[in-house]
């Protein structure tokens, strides 16, 4: 019965693993719900600031902000949002794969690439990549706060202001539903001007206090920050959803494995008993 004992210990260890994956699945499910709430809570701000931007596009400010102006592209910047931990299926891998495709295109066009990573996975992945890593943030936890991101975003905005990058993208996962997360790469800067409404076209402008440059600076900076913040919050919801699904399939696989091993164990046990019986019977017959 040596084989039997071996199988039994194997079953036990798989059962232990299954317990862990099942617990992780449940934790991820409850965290996902909270992350989704947080995602919904951050939406009004983004909507409102977008509405203000829309109004602004109808107005006729005398000052044209550099964030709204296209310029020839020589260097591009990416803000990459990833998770801190693994065990969340192909979430990060899918994003990185799409990103690499984009980066290679820029490479082919001889555009220099500057990166800024949020989350430990992106940092360790893009460290090996032949691009400059400008800034990095990790360990934001389940409830990231805007303050944690301000510095990271500012580095890239400063680079844009200084003309060190001509375009800025945000790469993160879009939460479609629990089963689907879509990697997306979105252009942050220059801000694509919203379409003009025909009925609002008559000439008007805001009063700016203290002046249009300072007000626009503040507004556009907050706009970019809110987009990045939303990307981060959404990515956390994606992470939890992906982890839940991955852990569920791991638990299921463990169950299948246990069933198979149990069958093998039973067969081995039966074979051993049969063998013993036949030995006894033949022994008795010989006497």
């Amino acid at each position, binding site marked *: 019965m040596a084989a039997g004992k071996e199988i039994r210990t194997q079953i036990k260890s798989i059962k232990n693993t299954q317990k862990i994956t099942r617990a992780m699945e449940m934790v991820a499910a409850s965290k996902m719900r909270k992350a989704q709430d947080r995602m919904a809570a951050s939406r009004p701000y983004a909507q409102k600031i977008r509405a203000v931007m829309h109004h602004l596009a109808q107005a006729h400010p005398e000052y044209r902000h550099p964030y709204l102006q296209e310029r020839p592209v020589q260097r591009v910047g990416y803000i990459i949002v990833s998770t801190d931990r693994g065990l969340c299926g192909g979430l990060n891998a899918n994003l990185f794969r799409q990103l690499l495709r984009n980066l290679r295109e820029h490479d082919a066009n001889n555009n220099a690439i500057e990166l800024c990573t949020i989350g430990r996975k992106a940092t360790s992945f893009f460290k090996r990549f032949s691009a400059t890593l400008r800034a990095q943030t990790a360990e934001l936890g389940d409830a990231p706060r805007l303050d944690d991101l301000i510095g990271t975003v500012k580095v890239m905005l400063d680079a844009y202001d200084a003309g060190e990058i001509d375009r800025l993208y945000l790469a993160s996962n879009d939460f479609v539903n629990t089963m689907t997360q879509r990697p997306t790469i979105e252009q942050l800067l220059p801000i694509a001007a919203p379409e003009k409404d025909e009925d609002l076209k008559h000439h*008007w402008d805001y009063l700016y206090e203290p002046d249009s440059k300072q007000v626009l600076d503040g507004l556009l900076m907050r706009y970019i920050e809110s987009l990045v913040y939303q990307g981060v919050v959404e990515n956390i919801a994606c992470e939890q959803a992906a982890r839940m699904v991955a852990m569920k399939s791991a638990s299921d696989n463990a169950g299948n494995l246990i069933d198979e091993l149990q069958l093998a164990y039973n067969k081995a046990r039966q074979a051993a008993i049969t063998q013993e019986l036949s030995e006894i019977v033949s022994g008795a017959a010989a006497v």
Partner: protein
Amino acid sequence: MAMTLHVDIVSAEREIYSGAAEMVFAPAEMGEVGIAPRHTPLLTRLKPGEVRVREPGGNEQVFFVSGGMLEIQPHVVTVLADTAMRAKDIDEASAIAAKERAERALADKTSDLDYAHAQAELAESVARLRSLEKLRKNQGRG
């Protein structure tokens, strides 16, 4: 019926207030502003202070904001409140911290990379051991 304004107060992390008001007072950068319906469009920054909303019933709601942006359209007032204390030097300091983290991550070739490397090696040697064991078992039986 008295004219009212629609007021939205939002911060990046959540919605704070949304509703009708007769009058809104906000701490704009150039001094406190009182906003009645049909105010001219205005865009300004806010100082830390309180935003007071006088509701149609006459009672007043007070919200503290630590800064932000204020947009006024004739019938809509939007307060984009900051959740964080913003000051040029605070922002600068966190930007420098983010840069330093990036430099440290680049310099720190040992931790993550080696760990991943070691893990891959471990997985490979475990697989090799397992196949060796299997081979030995089969030979033992044969």
